[in-house]
């Protein structure tokens, strides 16, 4: 009965939030590991995955390590030169849009796979993402998603592949799919060592203005954001010392240049917290 109340209340609150903040669409999926409560609002709606797709690449990297296909301490040639998914034309990623200038300083040399995985998630590096995906292969990463029973995440190409985008070939995801992806990470799909390392990388996320912004300061979040002109997402595992974690995937879509997108995701995060813990995150700040 309680979960029905929570579900109905949250549903109503999130729809009000979306309307008030002029979101074109939202998709939210939630799994509370403390109570088993699950929630999904438009959880099967497809969104452009933006940088949340990097979590799928991360899963594939560590699966490959578990399978002995690569070693995390191995080095990869850092080269800003990639082939587009359709037709194979060459493209480069833009340094201006990347928060990891230190990686660009290594072009021509090598970087460790573990460092690339860290840069891909914590700094959302497009260069690191494409290097890893280029090395693993899109087909391999898709196979890993299938083996992990993650449907609702369609990995089709690297990032900044404008030629593919023009032809409608994009990475897409649903909130339910991304929830499954995080659940696979937290489950036993990876070896315990890889699982620990993946979560450690996600915990070191540098962009914290969405899910964490709606939580009390003592919460820690293993998460990944994703933003493009029309999409603004954050997916993560929320750790609170007093209870088991919960997993949330918050996807939003706006008209381009709409302000307050990140704040909307933070407000959704806050509403989820309040619903699950029946307390205001601000009240536990001290």
């Amino acid at each position: 009965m309680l979960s029905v109340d929570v579900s109905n209340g949250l549903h109503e609150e999130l729809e009000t939030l979306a309307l008030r903040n002029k979101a074109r669409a939202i998709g939210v999926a939630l799994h509370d590991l403390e109570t088993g409560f699950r929630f999904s609002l438009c959880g099967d709606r497809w969104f452009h995955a933006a940088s949340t797709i990097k979590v799928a690449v991360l899963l594939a990297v560590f699966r490959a390590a578990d399978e002995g296909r690569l070693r995390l301490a191995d080095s990869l040639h850092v080269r800003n030169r990639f082939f587009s998914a359709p037709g194979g034309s060459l493209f480069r990623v833009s340094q201006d849009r990347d928060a990891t200038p230190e990686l660009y300083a290594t072009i021509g040399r090598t970087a460790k796979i573990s460092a690339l995985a860290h840069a891909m998630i914590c700094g959302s590096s497009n260069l690191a993402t494409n290097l890893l995906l280029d090395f693993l292969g899109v087909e391999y990463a898709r196979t890993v998603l299938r083996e992990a029973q993650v449907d609702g995440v369609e990995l089709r190409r690297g990032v900044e592949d404008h030629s593919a985008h023009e032809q409608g070939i994009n990475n897409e995801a649903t909130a339910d799919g991304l929830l499954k992806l995080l659940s696979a990470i937290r489950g036993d799909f990876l070896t315990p060592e890889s699982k620990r390392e993946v979560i450690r990388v996600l915990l070191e996320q540098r962009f914290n203005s969405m899910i964490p912004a709606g939580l009390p300061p003592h919460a820690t979040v293993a998460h990944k954001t994703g933003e493009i002109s029309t999409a603004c997402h954050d997916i993560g595992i929320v750790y609170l010392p007093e209870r088991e974690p919960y997993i949330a995937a918050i996807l939003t879509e706006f008209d381009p240049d709409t302000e307050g997108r990140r704040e909307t995701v933070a407000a959704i995060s806050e509403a989820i917290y309040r619903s699950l813990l029946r307390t205001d995150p601000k009240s536990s700040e001290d």
Partner: protein
Amino acid sequence: MRPIDGLRLGEEYRALLRPGESEAAANGTVHRLPRFFYEIGSWEEAHEIRLAPHFTLAELMLVDCREGRLLLSQFPHYVPCAIVLLARFLEDFRREVDAPVFISANGGYRSPAHRIGGPKSIHAWGTAANIYRVGDTFLCDARSIEKYRTIAASLSPAAFVRPFGRERGQTDDHLHIDLGFVSLTPRDCSEAS
């Protein structure tokens, strides 16, 4: 540096290095892979070996994890003896451009087992170098690549330098220089099988 006859190496190394074996190129020409190698005991040694005043051996043998596992993670490593000729050419090039010359990872010697190019790549002869930077200039556009291509090509009739472009046989993010399929037999080594 100690020269080694590749035919006397253990089976695992021979399978990866394929000393003296014939390899047909895409255009039908056939070449024999290098047979004689220098044996390198450690990375420290590779860093200490100066093949030319401004080029250490380490710079010419840096590869990534696409290299055969045995040749990547364990020492000794083996590099074709002709790599000394490449280093001398690169030194001439450096003198001509009067600036530091940077060789990319996977841009010097790669074994026939390397997943880029494999045994058909001239990098398996140790006579090719991919230069990604000269001084402060990254070679990633037509202007810089063509400028340094002209200089490199002027230094020797044996030098082949790929033109700028995005088609097969062209480069767009480095300068490829090679000296052809040169093999070097150290004077104390015998070519008798």
